[in-house]
């Protein structure tokens, strides 16, 4: 199958390579063409051109505005994609934005799935991403073999936007857990106790979690180089709190964690790992 990829960052690049490895023909478009260098792919001049060449297009880029401009903007995918083709948007964006884009594309007979992923750069490399899909079940079935190149846990959550709601829930739990791990490490250190031992002990008990494993280890080793850049979690928390506001829901913990992320950004640590929430605690 001819498959397009837009967004060739830490996530998109290994994902595209997995699709290629499975025997599919790859087309790519990149705002900076050099980020597509040495990929086994046809480089397209515009998203519209990429859309004309492909039956299925994946996008994995940063913001709602970016996805809107790549899909609906001038020379966007919607100008090229044929009726019946499928856009799989793996970006993390606002549920409202996903619904809006899906509705616009539907007007041209183009199918869309919102299919944000969890698992980070490592999950993308290992092809172990969790994929949360929103859209029509039949469309998901059509692209399921492609998604299987990226991860085995593929859940159809509901109609368009539902995948993004699931991703928002995922981000809330994960980043709150990072903050909890950071606070535990901070308390242990301030009490003169060995953080590594505390983490090791907790790993066997009820507080065990993947966040404590991965982020806890970074905190103990004071390794703040990004796995996932904290600025992306900061962006996601903006989306989550906006969704809470629109739904009239109170989320006191998420709101507090968002403020810690704001402080992290103010320190200039946005391109470091979110484990830097520990360093924010150490400021006060």
């Amino acid at each position: 199958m001819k498959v397009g990829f837009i967004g060739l960052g830490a996530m998109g690049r290994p994902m595209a390579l997995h699709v290629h490895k499975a025997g599919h023909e790859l087309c790519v478009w990149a705002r900076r063409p050099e980020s597509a260098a040495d990929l086994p792919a046809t480089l397209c001049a515009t998203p519209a051109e990429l859309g004309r060449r492909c039956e299925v297009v994946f996008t994995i880029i940063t913001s709602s505005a970016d996805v809107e401009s790549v899909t609906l903007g001038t020379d966007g995918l919607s100008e090229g994609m044929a009726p019946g083709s499928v856009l799989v948007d793996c970006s993390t964006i606002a549920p409202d934005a996903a619904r809006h884009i899906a509705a616009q594309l539907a007007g041209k007979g183009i199918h869309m799935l919102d299919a944000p992923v969890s698992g980070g750069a490592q999950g993308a490399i290992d092809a172990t991403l969790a994929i949360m899909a929103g859209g029509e079940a039949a469309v998901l079935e059509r692209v399921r073999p492609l998604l299987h190149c990226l991860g085995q846990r593929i859940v159809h959550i509901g109609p368009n936007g539902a995948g993004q709601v699931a991703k928002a829930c995922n981000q809330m739990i994960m980043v709150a857990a990072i903050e909890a791990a950071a606070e535990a490490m901070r308390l242990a250190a301030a009490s003169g106790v060995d953080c590594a031992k505390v983490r090791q002990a907790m790993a066997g008990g009820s507080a065990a979690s993947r966040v404590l494993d991965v982020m806890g280890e970074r905190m103990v080793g004071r390794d703040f180089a990004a796995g996932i850049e904290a600025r992306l979690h900061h962006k996601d928390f903006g989306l989550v709190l906006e969704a809470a506001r629109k739904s009239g829901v109170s989320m006191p913990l998420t709101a507090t964690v968002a403020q810690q992320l704001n402080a992290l950004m103010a320190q200039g640590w946005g391109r470091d790992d979110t484990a830097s929430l520990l360093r924010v605690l150490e400021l006060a």
Partner: protein
Amino acid sequence: MKIAFIGLGIMGRPMALNLLKGGHQVTVWARRAESMQPLLDAGAKGAGSPAEAAQGNELVISMVADAPDVAEVMRGVAQGAAPGLVAVDMSTIAPAAARQIGVDLAAAGVDFMDAPVSGGEVGAIAGTLSIMAGGSDAAFAKAKPAFECMGKNIVHVGASGAGQVAKAANQILTGMGVLAVAEAFAFAAKNGVDRGKVREALLGGFAYSRILENHGQRMLDRNFKPGFKSWMHEKDLNIVMQTAHELGLCLPGSAATAQMFNAMVGSGMGEEDSIAVLKLLERLSGQE
């Protein structure tokens, strides 16, 4: 002065009436024509559009709901404007949105000022609003006689957007202030102590505030009629939190307060006064 006034809601109507009382010639426009009638009865002229309202006037004032409304109204004003027109928006919108409108209008030769107010409907009727202005010295000088008909504490805070920054700071203080009084009252009641007596005692000390005095009394009376509606306070706190997010600014108290206001709107208290946050606290602690 010849002044156009756009937006004749709960705040705009009494503000425009005070301009008429101050001897100014006022032209009005409102989205709903029936909102214009009380002003026409009081001697104002009616206009068919914001552009028409701007024509032949030296000063245009808007008092509408949110940033997109201000932008739309001001696009119209720019079409009808003579060069050198001063346009003042007294709505509460995001500082960044106000700055952008200022830039857009400057291109059309209109000097734009943001001048949000505090003091509510009571202050608007009495002409005792606090007015926080952001923009050029020339625009402030032009608008000052109009401001003096509508308000008492009139401060030129700084450049474009500075008025909205001051208003956002005001909403941080009033939002947290109302929540603080409600929490103190919930605390007293759960301890079996008379909250009226607590209020009376605290009014003499360092915890004195106008909010403890006025909002506190309305909490004791369980008078939840607005005043200032919860959904509007929620909207204003959202401006605060969005701005904090954009700037990388840690505001834990405002964040917690904003979530309480989300819950008020979500649980059907949006049309009540913001002091209804007391009812939310009582529900959470089983004090109903």
